[in-house]
């Protein structure tokens, strides 16, 4: 809780200090978008805090859903709609599910576990608070007068993103597919090795082998398909896993 308090005070001080600096758009007369951003941001931050502090492991995953969903809303507020949907699809849809699977497969206890935090907690808290203070100070000091003009056409519409991605970022995009392939192979290798050794085949390896037939499809799909299909490829892969 001290972290939240510190963050709140930091936030408050920054608000106070930057009011005088912002001339055209004062911090004391926020727009509606800003109010919405602030509120969602608080929810997101609170959910993140609970995620890293709760003693119930499954609850942590669920609070992570809240935090990631809140971030998706923030993306929407920043007019980056495509990113927002990708965020929802991949993070909320697959990553958290994957994490929950992981918790179950490692026989994580349901309910409160007293030893969720390690003995490193106070060092971690110190480092995190100091880092937060430094970052907030630097960021506020640098950008207190910077204004984002959210009017006009959406900067992150699917059309704009797709054009940019396939006009300027094709090569990295393809390289990334290789990375994904490598990750896929890596996951399979890690699982199969364990299977070959242990007498009882673990569930993880079964899931990996089960998903393997769909891999070529999911890889080929974005190359063959149109601009709308490529965003789903990572999601499909993650979902398959």
């Amino acid at each position, binding site marked *: 809780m001290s972290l939240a308090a510190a963050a709140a005070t930091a936030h408050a001080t920054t608000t106070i200090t930057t009011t005088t600096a912002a001339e055209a758009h004062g911090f004391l007369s926020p727009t509606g978008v800003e109010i919405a951003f602030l509120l969602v941001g608080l929810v997101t931050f609170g959910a993140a805090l609970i995620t*890293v502090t709760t003693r119930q*492991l499954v609850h942590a995953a669920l609070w992570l859903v809240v935090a990631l969903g809140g971030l998706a809303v923030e993306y929407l507020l920043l007019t980056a709609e495509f990113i927002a949907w990708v965020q929802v699809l991949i993070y909320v849809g697959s990553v958290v599910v994957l994490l929950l699977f992981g918790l179950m497969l490692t026989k994580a206890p349901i309910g409160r576990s007293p*030893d969720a*935090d390690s003995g490193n907690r106070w060092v971690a808290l110190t480092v*995190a608070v100091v*880092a937060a203070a430094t970052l907030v100070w630097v960021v506020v000091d640098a950008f207190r007068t910077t204004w*984002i003009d959210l009017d006009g056409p959406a900067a992150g519409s699917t059309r704009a*993103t797709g054009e940019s991605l396939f006009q*300027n970022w094709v090569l*990295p995009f393809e390289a990334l597919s290789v990375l994904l392939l490598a990750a896929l192979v890596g996951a399979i290798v890690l699982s199969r090795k364990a299977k070959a050794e242990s007498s009882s085949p673990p569930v993880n390896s079964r899931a990996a082998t089960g998903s393997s037939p769909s891999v070529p499809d999911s890889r080929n799909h974005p190359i063959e398909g149109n601009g709308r299909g490529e965003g789903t490829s990572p999601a499909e892969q993650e979902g398959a896993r």
Partner: protein
Amino acid sequence: MHLAYPAVLSALLFCTGLYGVLARRNAILVLMSVELMLNAVNLNLVAFDVWLSRAAEETLHSGQALTLFTITIAAAEIGIGLAIVLAVHRNRGTSDIDKLRDTAEGPEPEGPEPDGPDHDALTAGQAEKAEATA
């Protein structure tokens, strides 16, 4: 909208994730915290991209493209990470980070030359390590 709002939120989220990485014992919770940190970076990228796409005439939307890449990489990372955690859990029976201390030295050798029991402990530790990596 002030750029400071997303930037500060991003910084706070990042440090929250940092705290989680450093303080959590369960490896999967650590992975969750890593996701938080990555998302904080994503928020930064998006916010700055939106700002720059308005401020500059021509833009490559590099921020949003990088965000997408980051999301992809994060997905791959979480897959590999979970596979490793599961493998460790299967071999060691635990996924607690602070119990995986094979890189630490064995019991303290006080004498100038290693005596018998210490040597045995060391070899036992090495055997354990070999088993873990197998």
